[in-house]
């Protein structure tokens, strides 16, 4: 089970580090209970993973109000909004009175935009004006909500959490899950999360899956962002102290195996100086590649695990002791491969035409004839002859001429 769900606050009091917000929300609930809401609607705003959605659920839980949630995945045109929120907000439940209220939550409200959600804000304005039920809007960026709507709402700011607040919460989880962990490791996770409790918890769970006992060193091998992932993967493999650590680095990053392979092949050789180690590393990588092909060809995907181990643990173990720091770069071959795609296409189409005229294969022509073409077409007449006889396109002619 995901820890973000398992440890989601059940009550507002369990929400970490959002005291001011909780206080405002409580007051607002009281005012509804008294039948005289200060504002009919709240606008919760703040960075991701700070507890906005969690708070509305805790609130519904505490008050017993029936929760009606809509989020960005629903279609929010004027009519859809009217239909769902509108109907609900006019009629109460069978249990009349405060107890029987419905809490209408429009999550990710800053994503009502564009043609698909045409008229959504207009409907929203009307609904807030006429509703007899409490409404909560949630957004990351308060200014993405039209000013008129903001004016109808009580604003509630959710703040990024402080590292010590996050560490405390993670320690609570660790204790519950009976996980041994260095406080240092949690601090690193907390700092990296940039005040985002959700990402901190997810990060922690990922690490804990891989390492039975989590240390700071292990945590340092990872980061959440994609680009950083790749670099940490490389660093992890090159500097890992054991096969096991290297394997887990690979598991923890979100990169397709062939993509990871391309990055490793591009960069690892730059860091390894000893020819013997280099040959050994390449040997391992080429074996990994073979497993990859076999897996894909015969669709035996469990072979991927052998590839993964070879490209991570295998490289880590064979890399030798002379590892130099190197500047990591994206796979250059692929980049150039795409940049030169047109030339290659021309080459292939010309070769194909020659092959057909010469009763042989493209591959034979490329091997035997293309290397000689720059010389052969120094004879202008031959070039003209080829152009006429092979029915070459203008692009192909240009390509041929450029070979001279």
């Amino acid at each position, binding site marked *: 089970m995901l820890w973000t769900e398992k440890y989601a606050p059940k009550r507002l009091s369990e929400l970490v580090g959002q005291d001011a917000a909780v206080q405002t929300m409580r007051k607002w609930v009281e005012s509804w209970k008294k039948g005289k809401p200060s504002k009919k609607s709240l606008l919760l705003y703040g960075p991701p993973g700070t507890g906005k959605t969690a708070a509305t659920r805790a609130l519904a839980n505490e008050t017993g109000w029936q929760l009606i949630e809509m989020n960005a995945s629903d279609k929010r045109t004027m009519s859809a909004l009217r239909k769902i929120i509108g109907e609900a907000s006019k009629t109460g439940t069978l249990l009349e009175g405060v107890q029987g209220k419905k809490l209408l939550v429009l999550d990710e409200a800053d994503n009502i935009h564009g043609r698909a959600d045409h008229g959504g804000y207009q409907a929203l304005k009307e609904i807030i004006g006429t509703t007899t039920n409490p409404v909560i809007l949630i957004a990351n960026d308060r200014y993405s909500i039209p000013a008129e709507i903001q004016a109808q709402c009580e604003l509630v700011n959710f703040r990024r959490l402080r590292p010590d607040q996050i560490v405390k919460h993670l320690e609570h989880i660790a204790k519950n899950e009976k996980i041994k962990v260095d406080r240092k490791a949690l601090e690193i996770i907390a700092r990296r999360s940039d005040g985002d409790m959700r990402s901190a918890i997810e990060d922690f769970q990922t690490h804990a899956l891989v390492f039975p006992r989590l240390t700071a060193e292990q945590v340092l091998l990872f980061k959440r962002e994609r680009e950083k992932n790749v670099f940490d993967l490389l660093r992890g493999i090159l500097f890992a102290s054991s096969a096991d650590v290297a394997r887990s680095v690979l598991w923890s990053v979100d990169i397709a195996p062939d993509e990871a*392979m391309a990055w490793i*092949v591009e960069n690892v*050789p*730059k860091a390894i100086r000893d*020819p*013997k180690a*280099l*040959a050994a*590393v*390449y*040997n391992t*990588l*080429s074996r990994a*590649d*073979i497993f*990859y*092909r076999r897996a894909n*060809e015969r669709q035996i995907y469990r072979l991927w695990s052998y590839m993964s181990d070879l490209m991570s643990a295998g490289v880590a173990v064979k890399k030798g002791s002379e590892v130099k720091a190197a500047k990591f770069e994206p796979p*250059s*071959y692929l980049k*150039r*491969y795409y940049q*030169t795609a047109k*030339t*290659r296409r021309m*080459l*292939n189409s010309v070769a*194909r*035409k*020659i*092959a*057909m*005229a*010469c*009763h*042989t*294969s*493209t*591959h*034979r022509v*490329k*091997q*035997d*004839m*293309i*290397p*000689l073409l*720059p*010389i*052969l077409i*120094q*004879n202008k*007449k*031959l070039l003209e*002859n*080829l152009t006429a*006889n*092979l*029915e070459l396109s203008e692009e192909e002619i240009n390509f041929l001429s450029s070979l001279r």
Partner: protein
Amino acid sequence: MPGEELEIWVEKYRPQTLDEMVGHSEIISRLKTFVKKKAMPHLLFAGPAGTGKTTAALCIARGLFGDAWRQNMLELNASDERGIDTIRTKVKDYARTKPIGDVPFKIILLDESDALTADAQHALRRMMEMFTNTCRFILDCNYSSRIIEPIQSRCAIFRFKRLEADDIKTMLQRIAKAEKFTLTADGANAIVYVSEGDMRRAINILQAAATLRKKVDEKAVYEVMAVAKPTEVREMIQLALDGKFLEARKKLHSLLIDQGLAGEDLLTQVHREIYNLKIPEDLKVDLVDKVGEFSYRLIQGANELLQLEAMLAHFALVGQRS
């Protein structure tokens, strides 16, 4: 018809009749009886590149069908046609129609048939049986062992050898005479040496040399060979042997990308170069072993780039030892 007036000499001087072909005298005489009697079994031509397999097939078609040969022959290249399905539909569509003119059967020439997978070959086998009334197959391949047994058993097998030096020289002098330039004896020898019994290579090199020089001698030939870029492959190997792995790798990328060289072809060139290297003989043999292994992997569909880089890393290791 495209290719008819082509100034590419391998095409311009491709023999039109079996009599014009050089070498393979026993094979040629048997093929001639097929033409004379207007009857033949399915044929399997096996042998190295550029030795006259396709030429022989085309000569048979001309001999049997005269001017109508193009209409009565379907030529397919297994390495260029995408998959057995294309071949299957093309063959079926073609085999269903009647031969044109007064001929007993049509010919389906399947070039590089060893490029077909075993599955594809089994499909082919069935087709060979289905259309015996209307069609004869001629299969060309480099190695007959890559052709499944049932197909082999349905064919008369002809094994083409690398052409003899004298046969190649005969052909080269014939061309020189027709094109009115001088090919010196050492020039002819040099071409024979670099072409390794492959007439296509020999003629291509001759044409290139004659483009550069009025008189084709040894120097002209080596000039061509220098431009024809095996030197780049050599440079790549040398860089690796000198321990400059990253530079060697760059060269590799440029060969694959800028020159569009296929990995397997590159390995063929590497193989050729090994014997020119200044390293101990036993290491050469080890390298050949390695190159063969990588070549096999590429055929199996491994990642070209990675496997070739791995090969360079191995060269770097050997370079350090020698």
